[in-house]
């Protein structure tokens, strides 16, 4: 499997080589599924600073990166804890500059998707009616009202957004980065096309023949991919369809443990700073928890026949 053109790196290497401080990073493109937590934790451990985070919604990963002081700017539609409510680190940063001041550029989900779509199409903007009349349109300089050149209508031009690097978690990929993903797609395909660099985090690394057997499921062609990381459980506590479920209790515990700054600092040390890698993290979760989150009933799709 390890051929000369393999893009396989460890998480430490991939983050070290391809995500310097100051980068604009797309994370959480698949919304509540397949959030690349392992990559985010490595960004924190390597002490990245002044990142711009891009994503539609962010289910606590943005909150963690903000709390750890890695972030200068957030370009997103929603930042918080989806099942539990607000993100306390996000609030502390915006309201009280703790641990540092951050800039927020507020989008809606649709306009963030269109910003990535414009970049994926290689055009400077995409038009939409969404956000007309809202304060998002007034405050976000990347949303500009204009008159349609082909009809008598007002529209919003959503400026193309081209992240320096997109980090996508997928179910399986080959060593060149050709990737199968399924389930919750969100803005992952546009995000992959839009970004200058693309890091694929895969639950499984498979032979190229496995990927080639089902080209409709290959949503990421390997030639777009900069690096591939094999990181089982890399999306925990978010779910990966067919691999593990959502750890609801982890999100609720995070909510309780981050309300006060000192509790967050303890949480950060326990779950990220003193954890050298994902294997240690999985051991920290414990066998019972891992067993509990595993797939209880498989639901395989029918095979698609590519024969002729």
């Amino acid at each position, binding site marked *: 499997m390890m051929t000369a053109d393999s893009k396989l790196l460890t998480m430490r290497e991939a983050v070290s080589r391809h995500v310097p401080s100051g980068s604009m990073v797309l994370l959480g493109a*698949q*919304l*509540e*599924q397949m959030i690349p937590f392992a990559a985010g934790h490595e960004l924190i451990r390597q002490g990245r600073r002044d990142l711009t985070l891009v994503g*539609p*919604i962010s*289910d606590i990963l943005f909150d963690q990166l903000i709390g750890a002081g890695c972030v200068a700017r957030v370009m*997103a*539609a*929603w*930042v*918080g804890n*989806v*099942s539990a409510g*607000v*993100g306390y680190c*996000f*609030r502390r940063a*915006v*309201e009280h500059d703790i641990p540092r001041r951050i800039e*927020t550029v*507020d*989008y*809606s*989900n*649709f*306009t963030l*998707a*269109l910003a990535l*779509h414009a970049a994926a199409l290689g055009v400077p903007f995409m038009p*939409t*009616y*969404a*956000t*007309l*009349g*809202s*304060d*998002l349109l007034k405050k976000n300089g990347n949303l500009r*009202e204009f008159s349609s050149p082909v009809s008598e*209508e*007002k*529209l919003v031009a959503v400026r193309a957004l081209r992240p320096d690097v997109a980090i996508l978690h997928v179910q399986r990929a080959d060593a060149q980065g050709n990737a199968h993903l*399924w*389930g*919750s*797609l*969100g*803005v*992952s*395909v*546009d995000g992959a096309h839009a970004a200058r660099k693309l890091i694929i985090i895969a639950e499984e690394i498979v032979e190229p023949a496995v990927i080639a057997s089902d080209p409709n499921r290959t949503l990421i062609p390997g030639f777009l991919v900069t690096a591939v990381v094999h990181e089982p459980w890399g999306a925990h506590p*978010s*779910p990966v*369809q067919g691999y593990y*479920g*959502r750890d*609801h209790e982890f*999100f609720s515990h995070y909510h309780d443990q981050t309300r006060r700054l000192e509790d967050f600092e303890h949480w950060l040390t326990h779950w990220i700073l003193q954890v050298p890698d994902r294997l240690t993290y999985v051991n920290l979760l414990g066998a019972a928890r891992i067993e509990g989150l595993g797939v209880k009933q498989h*639901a395989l799709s029918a095979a698609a026949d590519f024969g002729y």
Partner: protein
Amino acid sequence: MAAHSEAEIAARGYTFSELMVAAAAREIADGELVFVGMRLPMLAFLVARRTHAPRAIGLFENGIIRETPSTELLYTMGDPPNLRGATQCGQMLDVMGMLQQGRVDVGFLGAAEVDRFGNLNTTWGHRNKEMQRLPGSGGACDIACLARRTVVLLAHDRSRLCDRVGYITSPGYGSGNSWRRVQGLPAASGPAAVITTLGVLRFGHDGEAFLASVHPGISVEEVLANTGWTLRVADELIETLPPSDAELSVMHEIDPNHFWTR
């Protein structure tokens, strides 16, 4: 908000959240395309499908389309049970495109604040005069701009039903009358109802809210006292129908521990 004791709930046989879910479910007509959203509306979609709207179709902003709702409790729309058995797992732009085309009949939204013209704020709240940063729009602004009807659910509280929101995350009728048209928003769109813990508000042709129904056991005075502007009351004010046994049994089946319907 009025205090509602455990004893009152036991005597009535349902919680106010369950009443809100039932009222939300009744906003869905059979065969409609529904932008489902999170929390109580996820239950409302299931209740509607299992009672009066068996052919309603659910759209989720992560790209999921479902004709048969998940029968497991969902904490988020991305939970694995919401994907298995879906009609389609597409991309966000697929469902947002349908929304922008005007195909989506009704979208459900929560809010920190709603004002007399149905504008929603989920970006900046305040408590004791201190500004509080809230999570933001998510897909709410898109739904409020583009769905044919939007239905808002929130707890009825004077600070949350305010005269004018400080920040319009999701536009309702703006400052009323022709405001939406002037902004360039689609002609057939805008808030249809605000379902609260005390009653249901609807909107006049001028875009201003009025009290259309009060929940059982709630007085009009209580609603007015808990609303941050002088709320108009419908000439033909009605009492909200309590949840039926069929509606409650769907809710109890899917959320037996009242995670969402406390």
